[in-house]
């Protein structure tokens, strides 16, 4: 069993990683990288199926356990199955005009289909609203937690003010008295905002990027060499 659950996976990882690296440097092998990439992309699509299957499993269990709020699991399942049905069977989809006799030839997300309806009137308003609700919480959090307790906090707060005001016409209005073409033009809020972004933010982010890149490179090497095996689960 160790061979199947440890050795072979580690070999696959090492070889797959090596192929991707080699294909980036030797033009002759770029085709190998392409094939590995294509396999990956097909697996990524299978991962969507796995995600759906997992959801089904979790919520079926919740329903069978009949714990608190199991009715909502029923809602999840019904919505999942209905969307899946209209999508996989392309209910209400018009075929491609060049092949009107082949039902499945039409565009999956084409306007007017059942799947499109689920997107337009359910998926779209729900996801968009879910994300927009954070605007309220960010306001409340700023009121409660954003305190100028020390110098560092003042820097953070001051930058946030400049970005917030410099992005809208309030910034232009507040520092309109500074001539734009003069020696102090860069102190106008809207210009200061650009300066901060291109100098201070760029410096900080660049250092973070260099650090993360080093981290990713070393982790990737560890994974390919079989030193980091955490993805294979415990027991090693």
């Amino acid at each position, binding site marked *: 069993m160790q061979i*199947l659950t440890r050795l*072979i996976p580690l070999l696959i990882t090492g070889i*797959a*990683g090596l192929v*991707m690296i080699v294909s*980036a*440097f030797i033009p002759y092998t770029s085709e190998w990288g392409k094939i590995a990439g294509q*396999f*990956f*992309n*097909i*697996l990524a*699509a*299978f991962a969507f199926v796995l995600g*759906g299957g*997992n*959801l089904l499993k979790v919520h079926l269990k919740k329903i069978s356990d009949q714990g608190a709020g199991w009715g*909502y699991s029923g809602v999840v399942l019904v919505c*999942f199955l*209905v*969307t*899946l049905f209209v999508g996989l069977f392309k209910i209400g989809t018009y075929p*491609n*005009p*060049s*092949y009107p006799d*082949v039902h*499945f*030839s039409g565009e999956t997300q084409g*306007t*007017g289909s059942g799947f499109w309806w689920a997107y*337009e009137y*359910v*998926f779209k308003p*729900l996801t*968009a609203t879910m*994300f*927009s609700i*954070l605007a309220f919480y*960010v306001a409340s959090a*700023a009121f409660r937690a954003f305190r100028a307790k020390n110098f560092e906090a003042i820097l*953070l707060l*001051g*930058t*946030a003010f400049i*970005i917030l005001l410099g992005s809208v016409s309030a910034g232009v209005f507040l520092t309109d008295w500074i001539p734009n*073409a003069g*020696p102090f033009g860069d102190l106008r809020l809207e210009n200061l905002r650009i300066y901060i972004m291109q*100098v*201070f*933010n760029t*410096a900080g982010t660049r250092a*973070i990027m260099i650090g993360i*890149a080093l981290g*990713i490179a070393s982790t*990737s*090497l560890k*994974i*390919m060499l079989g030193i980091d095996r955490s*993805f294979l689960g415990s027991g090693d």
Partner: protein
Amino acid sequence: MNSVSEPMTPRQRATWAVILGVSIILIVVRCFIGQGMGKVYVEPTDLYFGEASPSTWTTMDEAQFDRFRADNPDARTEQWTEYRTVPPKAYFAQEQAGGGSIILSWPRTIGLWIGAFFTLAIYSFLYRDNPFYKFAESVVVGVSAAYWMVVGFWDTIVPNLIQRLLPGFAQEYLTPGMALPSSEVQFTNLIYLIPLVLGVMLICRLVPKGGWLSLWPLAFIVGTMAGLRLVGYTEGDLLSQVRITISSLYVPGGDDSSTFMMIWTTIWSSLASVLLVLGVLCCLAYFFFSVEHKGAVGGAARVGIWYLMITFGAAFGFTVMGRIALLAARFEFLFDDWLWLIDPTNQRRLADALPILGL
């Protein structure tokens, strides 16, 4: 402070009943003011197809179609009606002109109201957790999981896997637009059995005893990503960013309107360059934990923290900016598409629509 988990007091209940009642009355009233609200109109188009010769279909109009059927009684034909959403103003103009083909679409109108209901249901969470919110949340979980699955299947698995392994079947039932490959290509395509097998093994994760089978595809996924990222991040983030940082600290200014301004802008832009390099070094000093942050390193690390604080402040400002834009978009949906209170994209104003429609 009121805790959201507390049950509602009778007074709160009464307040909410009043607010809800008034809102419903206002919406009902709005439905009868002017052109009403929240309606979607469509224009049906009948499409006719005839198979003139084997597998060659011709698109035709109704008259051609009738003639084609009379001339070729055995030929295969297809027909259906497509519905295209049109701005409400087109319908209003049609009504004024005394009739036409544009009709109210019930499925889309009901959909619009469902969309509005879900939007409000999510916002109701701001007051407190409630069954409407929970319902909306469950719907989004179910629909989005199915959505990704369907798109993954039709957009990737079908054309990139099934079509390669079963080209004949795919051409007949799924992707008629794709030609059959030559027998040689079809043989090389057998290599795609590998991702198929790996894909099936991945799904075995759902079966209690098949968990270990998914380790192979997982190993492949992790390995290819590790190889790709190692090269990508080293080249794009590490080397490129270090290279860009090592640049001239003297930057000539862009303003040559006067000698003073030229010197001034040169100082200003060179200062930016110095501050940038200094900042990167100081932040790196802060991240460098192998040396104790004392003396010069300690000082540099402290300056590094200041830079990082400014970076986080900027990130906060930009995040706030983004979130508010999303909120504004939802309000626009409610006010424009549903309540018909505003009309920024000129969907309903008839005056401008008449000349477009040639009336």
